[in-house]
């Protein structure tokens, strides 16, 4: 496995809310290998979006990064000055926000968006910018002739999303972060977008980090997957390991709870119980109240990440007792 382009170490992020202190990310460590297509999956409220916000240091007003480091290309970006951070943002790390298609300025044409984005970071002749923009639009299967001169409202949701992705690639970043890229898209557009993302990944060799609650989409595009639950990372591994040989009961439960258009439905079951409060999380392992394999140690001690196989890590006391799904 390649060295990590992005390395998050013991990150702690809290939000100050009316009821108290909400710890949205609790000592999370995660490595994104260079060149990989990594997916971070988890359900609503698990903290995955907060991680993305922390990486770009775009926390909302009541959010505070309490501890931890985020290494990119060797340096801790949390310690960078605002000026240095600006140079990293977009030029080295680009991001596509959730429902980004709605953040396009309705009074600017796509070409103007593209030019503005580049000129905000460096000086470059407009014609060259537009040339590059055209190439990137073609990469996402949009017709530059038609799209560059269009206003956002003239494009469909799927097209807008692809425009935003093309924009994110304008400055040749090394890492592209996507937060729920398929929100508000119809099924066919979603599948189309996922295929384009894989193509971009293959052709440009850019590292992709996709955060999503849609587990099935991740199965299609990612090579590595991390699973997040209640502010903690529970399991990390290759996509095959996560889907066929998951060792954390939550991962097993999650994949087992998702119906599919093929396959046996009789094995599918929801996970009993409810996700825990992040203001007052349960002691020990966060998942233990809902876990069929829970034992007394799970109530007392928080499990540390252990290696199941090279590159496959799980935070569970009892992972050894859990058989892989595929024999």
């Amino acid at each position, binding site marked *: 496995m390649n060295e990590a382009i992005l390395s998050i170490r013991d990150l702690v992020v809290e939000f100050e809310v009316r009821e108290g202190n909400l710890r949205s990310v609790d000592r999370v460590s995660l490595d994104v290998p260079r060149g990989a297509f990594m997916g971070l999956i988890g*359900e*609503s409220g698990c903290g995955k979006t907060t991680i993305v916000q922390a990486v770009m240091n775009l926390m909302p007003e009541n959010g505070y990064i309490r501890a931890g480091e985020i290494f990119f290309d060797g340096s801790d970006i949390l310690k960078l000055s605002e000026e240095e951070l600006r140079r990293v943002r977009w030029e080295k790390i680009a991001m596509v926000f959730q429902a980004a298609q709605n953040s396009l300025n309705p009074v600017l044409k796509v070409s103007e968006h593209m030019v503005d984005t580049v000129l905000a970071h460096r000086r470059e002749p407009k014609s060259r910018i537009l040339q590059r923009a055209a190439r990137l639009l073609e990469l996402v*299967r949009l017709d530059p002739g038609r799209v560059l001169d269009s206003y956002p409202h003239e494009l*469909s949701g*799927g*097209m807008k999303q692809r425009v935003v992705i093309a924009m994110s690639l304008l400055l040749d970043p090394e890492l592209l972060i996507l937060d729920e890229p398929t929100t508000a898209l*119809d*099924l*066919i*557009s*979603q*599948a*189309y977008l*996922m*295929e384009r993302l894989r193509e971009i990944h293959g052709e440009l060799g850019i590292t992709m980090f996709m955060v999503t*609650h*849609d*587990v*099935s*989409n991740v*199965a*299609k595009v990612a090579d590595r997957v991390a699973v997040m639950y209640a502010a903690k990372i529970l399991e990390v591994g290759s*996509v*095959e390991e996560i*889907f*066929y040989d998951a060792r954390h009961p939550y991962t097993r*439960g*999650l*994949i087992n*709870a*998702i*119906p*599919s*258009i*093929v*396959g046996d*439905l009789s094995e*599918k*079951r*929801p*996970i*009993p119980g*409810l*996700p825990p409060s992040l203001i007052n999380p349960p002691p020990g392992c966060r998942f233990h109240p809902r876990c069929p394999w829970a034992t007394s140690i799970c109530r007392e001690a928080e499990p540390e990440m252990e290696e199941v196989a090279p590159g496959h890590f799980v935070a569970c006391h009892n992972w050894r007792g859990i058989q892989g799904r595929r024999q």
Partner: protein
Amino acid sequence: MMLLELQDIHVIFQRGWLRKRRGAHAVAGVSLALEEKGILALVGESGCGKTTLGRVALGLLRPTSGKVLYEGKDIWGRGGKGLRPTGQTVYQDSYSALNPVRTVYQTLAPPLRRYGTPRKRLREETKKLLEFVGIMPPDYFLNKYPYHLSGGMRQRLVFARAIIPKPKLIVADEPVSMIDASLRLSILDLMLRLNRELGIAFLYITHDLATARYFAQAGRIAVMYLGAIVEEGRMEEVLERPLHPYLRALLSAAPIPDPELARKRELMPLREAEPPSAEHPPPGCRFHPRCPYAQEICAREMPPLRDLGDGHRVACHLVEMLPPWRLT
């Protein structure tokens, strides 16, 4: 006799006030039937008219033309006027389906009272109802407000309220799309229980083929595109032998939580990737601009929904000539 029969339903929304202009033709000639205690999954993407059809089915919206027969009686016709079926509906957003300033008890008590529960038994009956839908412990939740409840709990509460009038039909419009993935099946299982134990027929409206398959395993599926039904039949049969190109495209696009399978499949290539506008549907078969098999007749005539035997109906001119296609 069918519980619900929709015959050649058209819904055209008028635009403008003084000069009535033709707006969207949201539902274009849909005929559907649902038997007592039956389950029908109505699948389609947003804008296809499925929500509108759901409202027509409940008598909430009067179709521009066509008949709505509930237990054989025309609910908009003479004599049937105002005969709204006691169907109930469950919505996608459970939060907006509940009055935010009313507690759980205050939400359930008035309908319970309205449908015959005597005043002194109200509390007890409310608790029994909460237990039945899985909101436990009932005492704890009685005086909670909707914002205290999780999404799943709220949806259960909406179901609890919906079954009070002992309806024969529930129209569930995207009931689980705002609920976390690991909990969706628990709501779908609740719906299956209501169907089995209380004999309630369900019209399950969704864009998610996977949950449709789960819920309507033993029932039927109807696929809608831009206001028309393009394929319909028993769920098992239709998924085993999908015929309409749109359904095939949908199935090829639907994500599968299995990396090997997911990577082997490719999205069926369509002539145009973009979904069309519902306001200006194409002439002839509405899918023809995107259909890889389209021929000249497809641009001219709207194909009728034909029964190919065994209740499997398809609206496509070329269905006999299509190459076989399997999901995997």
